[in-house]
């Protein structure tokens, strides 16, 4: 089997394992895994930008935010989205995420590298500022309590049922993004990441490609927001604060930018460490910080890049701290 096929098999086995094992663990673990799955969709959307297009965005939390707030406002103020119209909310969530990205993209896509980082930071802060102070809409610091989960034939208040729903969305998102990055469009994104100038010379409208990728990432961000709102049951400015965007970025780098599942791996590890380890030992932050630093220094391709590096090491190709790009080469 090719390495690609091995990877796909490994992913499928892991997914199956999650689907089977998790519902039989404690409620708390189910809760954590559900949260990790919902957030993973955001991190994977960031991976499309960072890992495949070479755009480091420090403001992805904004799309989770608009999706989440929209869900919360519709649910509490208009009683919308708590029945079969939940599926409409999913659609709207993706649309509002895409719409926001469409607007922000006009401002951001001209920039590259660290400038792109800065401008997405600024845009993310705008969203945070509004969430924090526009009290009449967002309830400001108090946040919005959703209260109940939707029921449409199945009752999502049941933790296991809800887990399966989020898991389903996770798998679908992963699949959709996988198809996207392997498509000609996706490959041209990778080309832009590697050598934008060359792509332009070859006649590609690189701005448009990047813009579309940005909008798609925004759509998935919005989706993760809708799911997040129902997972946590509460939406607050904390969801769009700078550290949330930073979290997503770090999770992607930790797991391995450019591998899609790397984003999910990173999300699981960080959320697991943060929520679980934090209740066991007080020095878990050092573990997290240390893992970040070591990964960035010695594992630029993240955890998912380890098999590749082992292979290369065997072939005698690595020395000391790698002076390589953060993203792995596509296979």
């Amino acid at each position, binding site marked *: 089997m090719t390495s690609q096929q091995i990877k796909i098999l490994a992913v499928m086995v892991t997914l199956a394992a999650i689907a089977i094992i998790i519902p039989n663990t404690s*409620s708390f673990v189910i*809760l954590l895994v559900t949260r990790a799955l919902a957030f993973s969709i955001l991190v994977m959307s960031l991976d499309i930008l960072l890992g495949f297009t070479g755009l480091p965005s420090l403001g992805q939390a904004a799309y989770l935010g608009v999706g989440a707030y929209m869900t919360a406002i519709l649910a509490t103020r208009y009683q919308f989205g708590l029945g079969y119209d939940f599926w409409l909310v999913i659609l709207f969530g993706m649309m509002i995420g895409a719409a926001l990205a469409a607007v922000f993209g006009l401002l951001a896509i001209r920039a590259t590298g660290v400038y792109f980082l800065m401008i997405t930071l600024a845009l993310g802060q705008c969203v945070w500022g509004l969430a924090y102070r526009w009290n009449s809409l967002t309830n400001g*610091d*108090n946040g919005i309590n959703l209260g109940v989960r939707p029921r449409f034939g199945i009752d999502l208040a049941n933790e296991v049922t809800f887990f399966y729903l989020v898991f389903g969305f996770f798998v679908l998102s992963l699949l959709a993004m996988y198809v996207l990055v392997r498509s000609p469009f996706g490959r041209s994104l990778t080309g832009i990441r590697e050598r934008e100038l060359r792509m332009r010379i070859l006649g590609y409208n690189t701005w448009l490609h990047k813009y579309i990728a940005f909008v798609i990432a925004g759509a998935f961000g919005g989706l993760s927001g809708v799911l997040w709102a129902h997972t*946590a049951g*509460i939406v*607050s400015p*904390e969801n769009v604060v700078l550290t949330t965007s930073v979290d997503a970025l770090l999770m992607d780098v930790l797991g391995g930018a450019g591998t899609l599942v790397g984003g999910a791996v990173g999300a699981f590890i960080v959320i697991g460490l943060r929520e679980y380890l934090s209740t066991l030992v007080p020095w878990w932050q050092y573990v997290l910080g240390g893992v970040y630093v070591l990964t960035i220094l010695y594992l630029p391709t993240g955890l998912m890049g380890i098999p590749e590096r082992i292979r290369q090491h065997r072939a005698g190709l690595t020395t000391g701290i790698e002076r390589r790009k953060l993203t792995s080469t596509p296979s």
Partner: protein
Amino acid sequence: MTYGFRRSLGAVLGGSLVFAMNTVSVARAEELRIGFLAPTTGIFAAVGKDMVDGFQMYLDDHKNKLGGADVKFIVEDTVGKPDTAVTKARKLILEDKVQMMIGGLLASTGYALAPVSTSEKTVYISPVAAADDLTQRELSKYPYFIRTGWSSSQPSHPLGQWACDQGYKKIAAIGADYAFGYEVIGGFQRAFEACGGKIIQKIWPPIGTKDFGPYIPTIKQDADAIFTLMVGPMSLQFPKQLAAAGNKKPVLGGGTSYDEFVLPSMGDEVIGHVSALMYSAALDTPKNAVFVKEYRTKFGKVPSYYSEVNYTTAQMIDEVIKNDSGKFPGAEPFIKQLAALKIDAVRGPVSIDEMRNPVQNIYIKKVEKKKMFDYDKDELWNVVIKTYPNVNQFGQFNKDEFLKTPVYSRDYPPCKFCE
């Protein structure tokens, strides 16, 4: 039977016997598992510490037993964020199997945790989180929720009356821009305007503001007095900056603006400031004198109301469990019994009204520099200058009419006299 089989059988039997004995013995020494949620890190860390210390001191005084049951006291950090609080609460209930959760600091945390108590059918006691509606208009949503501390607007109602009695006619209000701020100022406004006063301005700096430079100059010059509601680090900075800006007007405030958790760090700029709360460390009763001295010796600082309400909560749980012979009676009976309690707490007599909020004394206190309780240094104390007994959450107002009006918010009561 073979020798090996007999051995394994013996092991199994022996093991089962030990196991059975353990389960029996566990049932005899009943354990009370209490989950405590407070911000032990972040900008409210000092407050969180007082909350935990207050409860812990009662446990230490009573050999870690409440009502005869051994207590497993698990503290989780909310970092002051409702999101985190909800996750930790679920962990406490689902993993640690606590029979009750206590705590929450901010109104936002209270509003976030109350639904969890309903969905998980677990007792939630709030000594601190004072959001009004949890025991008013939203009461029916939270059958497992009960308060042992106060409601945000409870002390403001008598204070409003007191302000009229002092002859103030126009007051400018400035408070933290969130539910707690709205409710404390709202209660004051309702009471003050009911006896002829006028609130002429309401300013809302965001919670966590440290630079009041933009706000202080906008305070109306023709106000007779200023009413402030500050929490956390805001309480420390605001009076300093107000004094530095040359303020000469009298200052009134919500209890958290001058509570003992921040008072020792304050300077002479707050002497003469008046506030209202159901507790003051300067309460001159024998019970409080003992409490303050013990707390100070143990933790190196004067207790704040955060310490007292948690200490008293432990006391109340002690009483209830004692009546149940050291066993947790189940969530609903526990709530009923706690609500029927009348105790003599450190802060005075406390009982619970039919909407599960305390009825108690409200003390009007003024900051003075003096010696108290045989301490030989002049220090800042919230000296009690007037006591309003038996104040419930509706104060001097009729409960049904009160509930017909909306909950205090940024725009309610409306600022009729705002210029």
